[in-house]
C-alpha cells in the first residue's frame, strides 16, 4: 500500500497501462508538455513519446476520432478538460461510439475511455462546474464510472482501459488532491459493482463521486444523533449494481439518493425510480432525493453553496426519510 493523491493514482494507472500495452495512447488539450490542467498526465509525454499528444481545441472531432481509432486496433484515452464540454462530444457518444458494437453485429469493439471532471464548489462558474452524469448515463452502449477513492480511481481506470466497450470516466475537481491508500498489486476494478463505504442499519444513502464524501460526513452527524446510516458508493453509474442497492434497502428500509447532477431528469431520479421498481416492498418511506438545484451554477461562494448538495442537506433528507 502507498498513500497517494487521487490525481497521482490516475497517473499511475495510465502509466501502468501504457507500459503494459503499446496500443494505449492518451490525447487531449494541454495534457502532454504541461501534464494536464489537473496534472493527471504529468510526465507521460516524457515516458511515452508520441503516444501522448497535445491537441487543438476540437472536442467534437477528438471524440469522433477516438471512436474509430478504438475500432481499428488502438485503445485511446481522451481527456475532455471539463464535463461542461461534454455536449461537444455528445454526437460522437450518442451517434457513434455507443452504436457500432450492436449495429455492426459484433464486428467491432470499442475500447475507448473518455476521462473528464465535473462538479462545483470552487467558484468556476456556470460553464465549468456542472455534473452532466445523466446525459452520458442515459446512453445505451456506454459505461459510466465515477470513483471517489484514490484506490478506486486507479483500479477502475485500469479496468476501463482494458474494457472492450466505450467508458465515460467521471472525475471531480475537488477529488484530485484527496489522499488515500492505494494497493501496490495490479488490482483491476470491477465495472458495475458498488462499495459499502460505511455500514449502517437505519437508512441507506446511495451516493456518487464527491457526494460520497458528503454522505459520509452526514452519516457521522446522524450517528451522533443516534441514527445509523449506511453509505453506498455506487462507483459505476452504468451498469448500475442493482443487487447492492436492493440488498441495502432490504437491510435499512429507508433510502436517500444523492447526486451532483441537476435534480429534474437527473441521475438521482433514475436511482429513485430504480429503487421504487425493484425494492418497493422493502421501503418503509418514500425515497428522498438530494441533487443540485435546477438552475445555472452561480459564481459567488454564498450563492454556489445554496445550489450544490452538501452533508447538511443529505442529513436532513435522511431525517425526513425516517420521520
Amino acid at each position, binding site marked *: 500500500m502507498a498513500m497517494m493523491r487521487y490525481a497521482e493514482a490516475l497517473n499511475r494507472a495510465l502509466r501502468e497501462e501504457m507500459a503494459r500495452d503499446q496500443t494505449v495512447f492518451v490525447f487531449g488539450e494541454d495534457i502532454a508538455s504541461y501534464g494536464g490542467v489537473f496534472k493527471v498526465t504529468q510526465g507521460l509525454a516524457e515516458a511515452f513519446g508520441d503516444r501522448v499528444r497535445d*491537441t487543438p481545441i476540437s472536442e*467534437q472531432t477528438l471524440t*469522433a*476520432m477516438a471512436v*474509430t481509432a478504438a475500432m*481499428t486496433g488502438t485503445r485511446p484515452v481522451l481527456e475532455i478538460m471539463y464535463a461542461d464540454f461534454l455536449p461537444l462530444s455528445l454526437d460522437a457518444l450518442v451517434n457513434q461510439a455507443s452504436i457500432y458494437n450492436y449495429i455492426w453485429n459484433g464486428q467491432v469493439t470499442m475500447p475507448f475511455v473518455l476521462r473528464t471532471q465535473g462538479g462545483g464548489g470552487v467558484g468556476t462558474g456556470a460553464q465549468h462546474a456542472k455534473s452532466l452524469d445523466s446525459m452520458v448515463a442515459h446512453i445505451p*452502449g456506454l459505461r459510466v464510472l465515477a470513483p471517489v477513492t484514490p484506490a478506486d480511481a486507479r483500479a477502475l481506470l485500469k479496468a476501463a482501459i482494458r474494457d472492450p466497450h466505450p467508458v465515460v470516466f467521471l472525475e471531480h475537481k475537488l477529488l484530485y488532491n484527496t489522499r488515500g491508500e492505494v494497493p501496490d498489486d495490479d488490482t483491476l476494478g470491477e465495472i458495475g459493482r*458498488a462499495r*459499502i463505504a460505511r455500514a449502517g442499519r437505519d437508512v441507506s444513502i446511495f451516493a456518487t463521486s464527491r457526494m460520497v464524501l458528503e454522505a459520509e460526513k452526514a452519516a457521522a452527524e446522524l450517528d451522533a444523533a443516534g441514527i445509523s446510516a449506511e453509505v453506498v458508493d455506487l462507483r459505476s453509474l452504468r451498469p448500475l449494481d442493482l443487487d447492492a442497492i436492493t440488498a441495502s434497502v432490504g437491510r435499512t428500509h429507508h433510502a436517500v439518493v444523492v447526486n451532483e447532477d441537476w435534480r429534474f431528469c437527473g441521475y438521482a431520479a433514475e436511482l429513485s425510480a430504480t429503487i421504487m421498481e425493484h425494492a418497493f416492498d422493502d421501503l418503509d418511506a418514500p425515497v428522498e432525493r438530494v441533487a443540485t438545484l435546477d438552475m445555472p451554477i452561480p459564481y459567488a461562494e454564498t450563492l454556489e453553496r445554496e445550489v450544490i448538495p452538501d452533508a447538511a442537506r443529505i442529513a436532513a433528507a435522511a431525517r425526513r426519510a425516517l420521520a
Partner: protein
Amino acid sequence: MVLTRLLEERLGDLHKAGKTRGPIHRCDGQEAVGVGAAAVLTDADFITTTHRGHAVYIGKGLEPRRIVAEIFGRQTGYCGGRGGHMLLGDVEHGMLGGNAIVGASIPAAAGMALSIQLRREDRISVAVFGDGAAQTGICHETMNIAALWKLPVVFLLEHNEYGLTVHHSVQSSVPDLHLRAAGYGMPGEQIDGNDVIAVHQAVSRAAQRARRGDGPSLIEARTYRLEGFSTSDMGGYQTPEELAAWRRRDPIPQSREILAETLGATRVADVEAAAAREIEAAFETALADPMPAFVPHAPSVPYTARGEGA
C-alpha cells in the same frame, strides 16, 4: 459502376412498389467517385462514406447479395439487418461505415488514420463526404488536425451540388471548396467526378502521398445526383435544364465509350450483362433470406447482470 447503377434502379423500382423500408439514398450519377476511389485501395485500407454510400460499398468489393440483404433487413446482410442501407459496415473489406450524421465520415476516417500512424502500419484511410458536410465544424477541425499530425488520410469531397435540397451557392460563399486545402497546408485539387479515370488518378496521387507519410490531401470531385435526395424527395429544386446537362455527362455512358475503344463493344456488353445477372441473382437470393431474430444487446443493459454484483 454498372453494378451500382443497376442496384439503385432496382431499389427505385421496389420503392415505387412499396417494398422498401425507410428512406433509400440513391447515388445514380455519382458512381464514378466511390468506385474510382475504392479501386485504389486494398482490403487493408479503410474507407468511410456517407448515407449515400452504395458506390463505395460495391467499389470496396462487398458482395451485392449481402448488401441487398442488409438493405432489406435480412439476417444474411453485412450487419445482420441491424444497420440498414445507410449504416452498413464490413470489417473484412475495411469498409468502415456508411454514416448518416452529415460530416461524421470525416473525423471517422481521421481516427482510423491516427490508429494507423500510432501502430506504424502500412495502410491509409479515405473519407468520402459531400459538399453539405464540408460546411460542418468537424470538417474544419478534422482537416486541421490531420494536416497538423500528417495523418495518412485522403479527404474525398463528393460535390453533388446539393445538401438535401439546398444548392451549394446557398451554403458557401466559395464555390470551389478545394481551395480550402491551402488554409490547412495540404494539397487540394478539383477534378471531374464523373470521369472515373480522373478520380482514380487523383486518389492514387493522394494515397501515395499519405503512404509516404506526407499527410492528407483534399480532392474535390464535382458530380451530380441524378435522382432525389432519398426516396422521400418530392423534387422541384433542380431545374430540367440542369438535370439534362448532367444527364449528358452521366459517368456510365462516358466510361462505356472509353472502354469500348480499348476492349471492344462486345466485351463491354458481356461485362454489363454479367453485372445485370449478378444484381438479379442478388435480389432474388437476398429477398428470400430469413429476417433476423431479436437478441438484446448485453453491453447496453443498464444494470449489472444478476450474480455479478455485490
